[in-house]
């Protein structure tokens, strides 16, 4: 019933607006076309001019409401460079934006059609064209130079002392694999994947796999001020490891391995103080549409001190051990957990 009333209301409003339109057409004829056109022109010219200060006010208002909803300070050096490059770009484009929009709306008002106005036949001017080709080209060149310097910085190879962690995406969660005591990730093969006891398809004939630790809750632990290199891959469709607080992201493509590295400089606890939000947590967002659960592929990053990290690592059980309790004596864990067919067995607390 309410649907019918709503539809009827909408139709009514349309009919009213249409009649207003039609009525204005008749009134133009009655009052003399030229006079009405001139008046309408003046009104519209004024309204257009008004749009510019209105727009500026809107931008200022937007800036003020959004001020405390934006990201806090970047949590890694490349992120800080990012923010400064972004600011430079905003300034350059901002100047162009305000200048051209002002000119546009001002010209609309100033050169509105009037009885006495004559136009100035100005068909071309090569000097002008040269000026406004060269200046944008130079501005672009500067932005490109700054951008490429940052780009090569971000995409450079990770330092040799970087902690290496593998992040694998699947519909619809992230799995993190740590290399364990031997500091090497073992080989894996997608054909060995088994959702019950081998979610990443680790090849158990490779001894480097025996001490690897897998988190299936997407919680990535890293150490503050220590570079970390993520080896990113996917088990099924394309995903993307999005790290907004570090200003980075990288696609996770099945069949292809991608890399992303950064040095976190602010611990999760410090960030809670900086943002005045006790619930703050660094989040990993999936940034490539991967199906119906794309919006729920949430991961987290815990940036902690070396000591906290070591303590956490010591409490982790290797993936092999948690899925093969009979082989437990060979593992280096301190806690053995009962085997459980559910993959939740390896969920870390």
């Amino acid at each position, binding site marked *: 019933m309410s649907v019918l009333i709503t539809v009827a209301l909408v139709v009514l409003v349309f009919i009213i607006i249409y009649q207003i339109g039609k009525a204005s057409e008749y009134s133009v004829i009655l009052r003399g076309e030229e006079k009405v056109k001139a008046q*309408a022109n003046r009104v519209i010219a004024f309204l257009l001019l008004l749009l510019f200060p209105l727009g500026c006010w809107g931008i200022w208002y937007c800036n003020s409401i959004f001020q405390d909803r934006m990201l806090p300070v970047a949590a890694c050096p490349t992120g800080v460079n990012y923010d400064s490059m972004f600011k430079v770009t905003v300034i350059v*484009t901002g100047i162009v934006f305000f200048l051209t929009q002002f000119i546009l709306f001002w*010209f609309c008002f100033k050169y509105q059609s009037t009885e006495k106005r004559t136009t100035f036949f100005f068909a071309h001017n090569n000097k002008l064209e040269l000026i406004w*080709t060269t200046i944008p080209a130079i501005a672009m060149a500067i932005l490109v130079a700054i951008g*490429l310097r940052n780009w090569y910085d971000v995409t450079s190879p990770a330092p040799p002392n970087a902690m290496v962690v593998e992040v694998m995406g699947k519909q619809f969660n992230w799995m993190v694999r740590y290399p364990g005591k031997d500091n090497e990730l073992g080989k894996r093969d997608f054909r060995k994947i088994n959702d019950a006891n081998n979610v990443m398809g680790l090849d158990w004939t490779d001894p480097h796999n025996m001490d690897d630790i897998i988190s299936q809750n997407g919680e990535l632990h890293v150490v503050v001020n220590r570079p970390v290199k993520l080896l990113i891959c996917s088990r099924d469709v394309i995903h993307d490891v999005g790290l907004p607080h570090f200003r980075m992201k990288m696609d996770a493509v099945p069949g*292809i391995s*991608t890399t992303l590295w950064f040095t976190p400089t602010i611990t999760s606890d410090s960030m809670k103080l900086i943002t005045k939000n006790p619930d703050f947590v660094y989040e990993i*967002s999936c940034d490539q549409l991967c*199906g119906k*659960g794309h919006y729920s592929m949430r991961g987290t990053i815990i940036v902690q001190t070396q000591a906290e990290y070591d303590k956490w690592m010591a409490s982790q059980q290797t993936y092999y051990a948690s899925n093969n309790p009979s082989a437990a004596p060979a593992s280096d864990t301190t806690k053995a957990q009962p085997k459980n067919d559910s993959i939740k067995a390896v969920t870390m607390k």
Partner: protein
Amino acid sequence: MNNEEIIIEGPNVAHGAESATDHHGHEHHEQHFIWKYIFSQDHKVISRQFMVTGIIWAIIGALFSVFFRLQLGFPDSTFPIMEKFLGEWAKGGKLSPEFYYALVTMHGTILVFFVLTAGLSGTFANLLIPFQVGARDMASPFMNMLSYWFFFAASILMFASLFVETGPASGGWTTYPPLSALKEASLGSGVGMDLWLMGMALFVVSSLLGGLNYITTVLNMRTKGMTMTRMPLTVWALLFTAVLGVLSFPVLFSGVVLLIFDRNFGTSFYLSEIFIGGKALPHIGGSAILYQHLFWFLGHPEVYIIMLPGMGMASEVLSTHSRKPIFGYFAMIISLVGITLLAFVVWAHHMFVTGMSPFLGSIFVLLTLLIAVPSAVKVFNWLTTIWRGNIRFNPPMLFALGFVSLFISGGLTGIFLGNSALDIHLHDTYFVVAHFHIVMGVSAFFGMFAGAYHWFPKMFGRFMNNTLGYIHFFITFIGAYLIFWPMHYEGIAGMPRRYYDYSAWESFKHFQGVNAFISCVAIIVFFAQLLFVVNFFTSIWRGRKMTTLNPWGSTTLEWTTPIHPGHGNWEGEIPEVYRWPYDYKDDGHGNDFIPQTTPLRPGEEAH
């Protein structure tokens, strides 16, 4: 009777008198209804067919955005009206995630391809090219007819995909595999995807048929005196649009064919090392990134295919309604050439975060930021065109001016995204959504509206209602900025695109209020577009009639045809052209313009 037949049966299609070229080969004047109105080979009829089909698709595509904006703006609410429209897909009045993604996908597909490519190029290239170059019809009217009917066939398949049980395609309008290749990955990768792919294949055929025709007509069928450099900028823009399409659509076609093969014939072009649905798939060796290259090789020129006609039409409208020549005619042509060439070599700026070699990325950064230069030149030329003009603010002019403002805004944010280091953070966030909507979804649409209001008299012999036009302009212009400006901030804050719900995200849930605001404005703007549609259709029968041949005082050839041009456009000989199309100056007889068909006065130099 469907809409089409009613419109075409209107007074416009006056039956042609003896035409100089009798390329239909019919012996007598009377054509059967089917050949005259349905499978018509007359470019004017075909242009109206494209326009109406485009309008219908635009309403559907925009309606989808209203639905998913309701979900985004009010994720905790239910809307019984959605269940009325969408049934199972919105059980309990709330969109299911699968169908949310299907709506988002189809919104993009419909608006980018079916409205802004077919509805824009199809309508205006067909309407304006023969008129403005002085031809009686296109080079191949038969192929032209086929281009519309292939578009119609593509539309049928696409429309059908909306009603299949597993739902329409839902992998985004970009349809990346493996998501789109594997039925196990998503409901929307079932039958709906097959229909989508086949629909796109037919669509590409339609575009090619049209594009080849437009190029040939411009190059071969110009009237006497119409040299290339006396063509209006609209024709130049439509020519380059067609070139872009002809060279890039086949690559999309190949990408689509390979995807069809991967889906149905066991190939591994895009698939490698996949475990899904509980088992490891046998595919090895393919690359999902290959699809992205093939897709974006079209995808980037596609956005210029969308942009260029609007640029051409805006140039025309700005010039006519400020009573001044377009400033820098040659510079405008050269910048069109620059944009066309560069459009082909920047595609991988959509792929900066796929793991590509950094060196390759830097090349694309350079080329992408280069393309900003000709675009900037065009903006400055438009501004100089209105400088010291005598501006008449009718709806076409307002939309052309709005076009410039929006192109400035959207173009500048492109500079952020083209710089790869900045793109790393902004990729797949709402910053991208804001950028492409302002530049395609609004600016290009404004170009289309400018053209629609300006050439409506030529299409139907009547005017659209001015007051409704003003209301349409102000609501849409202000509304569009209100919708898309805040999205930039959300993107800068890293808020990802294509998310059904942000409530579980500590980093993004505080944007809920903004999302609700955007949704409210979007609904209002949607209704303003319906106002345009009502204006459009009622004006066809009840609009104020055209009483003079050239109501806008324009210099170009289409205004020398009769108010209701028949088959063959001009009743006698096709006029000869003596001057360029922008002689907006005193003709010595009280007019402030000199049409192209007026011979040079003694002592006057050609421009």
